[in-house]
C-alpha cells in the first residue's frame, strides 16, 4: 500500500457518490429526455409514417417558378422579402412569403402569408401569421413535432425548458464521465455479466455492461445536447451582447453570412426551376428546403439546402445569384467563408441526431439510445432496491420508477393514437396529439396510485404498451389504406420501418410480461414481488 492509496480510494468514493446523486436527482427527467431523444432520431420517419406518405420530390418535379409568380401577385408587397419553400408530409408544397419582425414573445420571427399547394399546383390553404405559430398549427407534422418538443424543452416555456434540458445534458455528462473514471476494468466490464446472478446483482452487472458500451455515445450526446440547449436559451444573445454590443440582428447577419443592407432596385429575377434543377444535379439529390431572398431586385438570391448524402456528414447549402440564375458558391453553414466554427456547426446536428448515414446511422443511434435508457432505468432501480427494504418512503421511489419508465412510452404511444383518431374524426390534430398525451399521463398516474401491488402495476403497463404498439400499425393502415405491399412498391421505407419497430416493441413487451409471470424470474429481482410478499419475507 502506498501513500496515494487512501486518496485514490476517497476519490473513487467521491466519484461513485457523484455518479449516484447526479443520476438520482435528475434521473427521471434525464430518462424522459433520452427516451424522447431516441424517438426524435426518427422524427422525419415518424412524420412520413404518421401521414402514410413519402416525399414526392415536388420541389424538382413541379413548376415552382410559375407558382411563385402566381402567388407573389396575390401576396402583400411587404411579404415578398423572402420566400421559403419545402414539401410537407402530405404531398403539398409549403410556400411562405414573409418578412421579419418581432413576435408577441419579443423574438425575431418570420411574418407573412403561407400557402399550401398540392401536386396539381392548386392552393389548398392560405394563412397569415408568424412562422412559429404557423409551424405549431401544422397538422401534417403534429406527432413528430410534439415528440421532438418533449426532447428539446420538455414542453416548458422558453427559455426555461431549454435551460432545464441543458442542465440535464450536463448531468448526463457528469454521470457518463464519472462512470468512465470509476471503471478500473473498462474492457472486461463490457462483457461482465457474471454467471449465476439474479435480481439486484444481475441488474448491477447489466447496468455496468450497458453503461460501458454507451459511455462514448453518452458523452457525445450530453455535450452536443447541452450545447444546443444553452446556445439557444442564452448563449447566442449573450454572444451578441459581448461581440456586437447587443445588436442581435447584426450577429444573425454575420452568422447567416449576409450583407445587412442590400439594394432594392427592381430587376427581373431568373427562372427558379433552372436554379433548383441545377442544384439537384450538382448534389445528385433533391433539396429539402429552398429560400428565395429579395426576389425581383438587384440583390435577389436563392439558397438550396441539402441533407447529408454520399458519405458527407454535414448539411450543404448551395447559393445562386437569382438575377441571372448563376451558381455562386457552396456556402458554409455559418459565416461567408469556411472556418473552424462552420465545420463544427455543420457536424454537431448530424452527430446529435445520427443523420449522417441515413437509416443505418439512425438505427445505431436508436440502439445506443435504448442502451442509455436502460442504464438510467437500472441505475435508478438499483438505488430503489438498495433503500426500499429499510424505509417505507423508498417503496414510493420504486413506484415512481415504474410510473416513469413504463408510463412515458405509453403516453407517447397514446399521443400517436390521439393523432390518428383525431385525424379520422377531422378534429385538430395539433391540439389532440398533446391532449392525448396528457390524458394518458393522468390515467397512468391514477393507476400508479390505485394499484397497490407493484408487480401488477408493471404487468398492466407492459400489456398496455404492447397492445398500443400493436394497435398503431393497424390504425395507420385504417386511416390511410396503405398496406405493406403498396409501401414496398412505392419504396416507403420509413413507413415500413416504423411499423416494424412498433411490432418488435410489442413483441418485446409481451416477452417481458411472459418473463415477469414466470415463477422466480431472474430479470425482475425483488421489485417484482408484491409488497405484501416482501412484508411477509421480512
Amino acid at each position, binding site marked *: 500500500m502506498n501513500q496515494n492509496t487512501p486518496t485514490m480510494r476517497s476519490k473513487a468514493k467521491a466519484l461513485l457518490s457523484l455518479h449516484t446523486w447526479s443520476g438520482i436527482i435528475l434521473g427521471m427527467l434525464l430518462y424522459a429526455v433520452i427516451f424522447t431523444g431516441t424517438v426524435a432520431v426518427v422524427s422525419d420517419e415518424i412524420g412520413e409514417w404518421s401521414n402514410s406518405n413519402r416525399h414526392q420530390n415536388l420541389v424538382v418535379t413541379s413548376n415552382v417558378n410559375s407558382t411563385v409568380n402566381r402567388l407573389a401577385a396575390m401576396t402583400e408587397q411587404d411579404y415578398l422579402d423572402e420566400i421559403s419553400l419545402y414539401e410537407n408530409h402530405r404531398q403539398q408544397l409549403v410556400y411562405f412569403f414573409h418578412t421579419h419582425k418581432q413576435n408577441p414573445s419579443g423574438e425575431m420571427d418570420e411574418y407573412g402569408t403561407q400557402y399550401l399547394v398540392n401536386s396539381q399546383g392548386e392552393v389548398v390553404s392560405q394563412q397569415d401569421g408568424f412562422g412559429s405559430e404557423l409551424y405549431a398549427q401544422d397538422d401534417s407534422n403534429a406527432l413528430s413535432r410534439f415528440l421532438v418538443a418533449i426532447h428539446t424543452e420538455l414542453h416548458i416555456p422558453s427559455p426555461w425548458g431549454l435551460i432545464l434540458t441543458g442542465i440535464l445534458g450536463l448531468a448526463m455528462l457528469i454521470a457518463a464521465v464519472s462512470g468512465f473514471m470509476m471503471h478500473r476494468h473498462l474492457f472486461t466490464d463490457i462483457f461482465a455479466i457474471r454467471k449465476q446472478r439474479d435480481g439486484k446483482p444481475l441488474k448491477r452487472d447489466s447496468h455496468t455492461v450497458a453503461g460501458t458500451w454507451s459511455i462514448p455515445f453518452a458523452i457525445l450526446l450530453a455535450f452536443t445536447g447541452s*450545447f444546443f440547449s444553452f446556445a439557444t436559451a442564452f448563449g447566442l444573445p449573450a454572444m451578441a451582447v459581448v461581440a456586437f454590443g447587443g445588436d442581435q440582428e447584426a450577429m444573425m447577419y454575420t452568422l447567416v453570412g449576409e450583407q445587412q443592407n442590400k439594394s432594392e432596385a427592381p430587376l427581373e429575377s431568373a427562372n427558379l426551376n433552372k436554379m433548383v434543377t441545377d442544384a439537384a444535379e450538382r448534389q445528385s439529390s433533391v433539396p429539402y428546403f429552398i429560400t428565395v431572398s429579395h426576389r425581383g431586385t438587384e440583390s435577389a438570391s436563392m439558397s438550396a439546402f441539402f441533407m447529408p448524402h454520399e458519405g458527407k456528414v454535414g448539411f450543404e447549402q448551395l447559393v445562386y445569384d437569382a438575377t441571372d440564375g448563376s451558381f455562386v458558391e457552396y456556402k458554409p453553414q*455559418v459565416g461567408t467563408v469556411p472556418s473552424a466554427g462552420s465545420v463544427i456547426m455543420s457536424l*454537431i446536428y448530424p452527430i446529435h441526431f445520427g443523420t449522417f448515414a441515413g437509416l443505418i446511422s439512425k438505427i445505431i443511434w436508436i440502439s445506443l439510445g435504448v442502451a442509455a435508457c436502460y442504464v438510467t432505468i437500472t441505475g435508478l432501480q438499483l438505488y430503489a432496491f438498495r433503500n426500499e427494504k429499510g424505509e417505507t418512503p423508498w417503496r414510493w421511489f420504486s413506484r415512481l420508477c415504474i410510473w416513469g419508465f413504463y408510463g412515458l412510452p405509453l403516453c407517447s404511444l397514446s399521443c400517436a393514437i390521439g393523432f390518428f383518431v383525431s385525424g379520422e374524426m377531422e378534429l385538430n390534430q395539433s391540439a389532440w396529439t398533446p391532449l392525448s398525451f396528457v390524458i394518458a399521463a393522468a390515467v397512468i398516474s391514477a393507476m400508479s396510485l390505485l394499484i397497490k401491488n407493484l408487480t401488477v402495476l408493471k404487468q398492466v403497463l407492459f400489456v398496455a404498451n404492447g397492445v398500443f404498439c400493436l394497435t398503431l400499425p393497424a390504425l395507420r393502415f385504417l386511416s390511410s389504406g396503405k398496406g405493406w405491399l403498396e409501401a414496398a412498391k412505392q419504396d416507403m421505407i420509413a413507413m415500413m420501418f416504423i411499423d416494424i419497430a412498433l411490432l418488435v416493441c410489442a413483441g418485446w413487451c409481451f416477452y417481458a410480461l411472459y418473463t415477469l409471470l414466470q415463477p422466480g424470474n431472474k430479470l425482475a429481482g425483488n421489485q417484482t414481488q408484491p409488497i405484501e410478499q416482501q412484508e411477509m419475507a421480512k
Partner: protein
Amino acid sequence: MTTSTGLLFKNGRFWLSGPATLLVSLLVMLAMAAWFPPGAGNVNNIVMPLVMFPLIWAALFFYTYLANDMRKAWGLLLALFIVNSVVLAFQFLG
C-alpha cells in the same frame, strides 16, 4: 431531509463545484467572445465559446470536485474570474 440539505449548503465543496464553477464557466464563455480570434469567416469568436461552454464547465467541475486542496481550486477559479472580468471590462469600457 432538512438536515442533509443544511449540510449540503454548509459544505464548501458544494459552493466551489456548484455555483462558483458555473459562474466562472459563464464568464470564460463570455470573455472568449472578446479574445478568441474571429477567423476568416468572422464567426469563430461566436461559435467556439458556445461549443466550448459545456467542456469548460465539465473540466472545471471535475477539477474542483476532485481537488484535494480546495484552496488551490478556489484560487484557480478566482484567477479565472479576475482575468476574464478584466477582459470583459476592456471590451465594454475600453
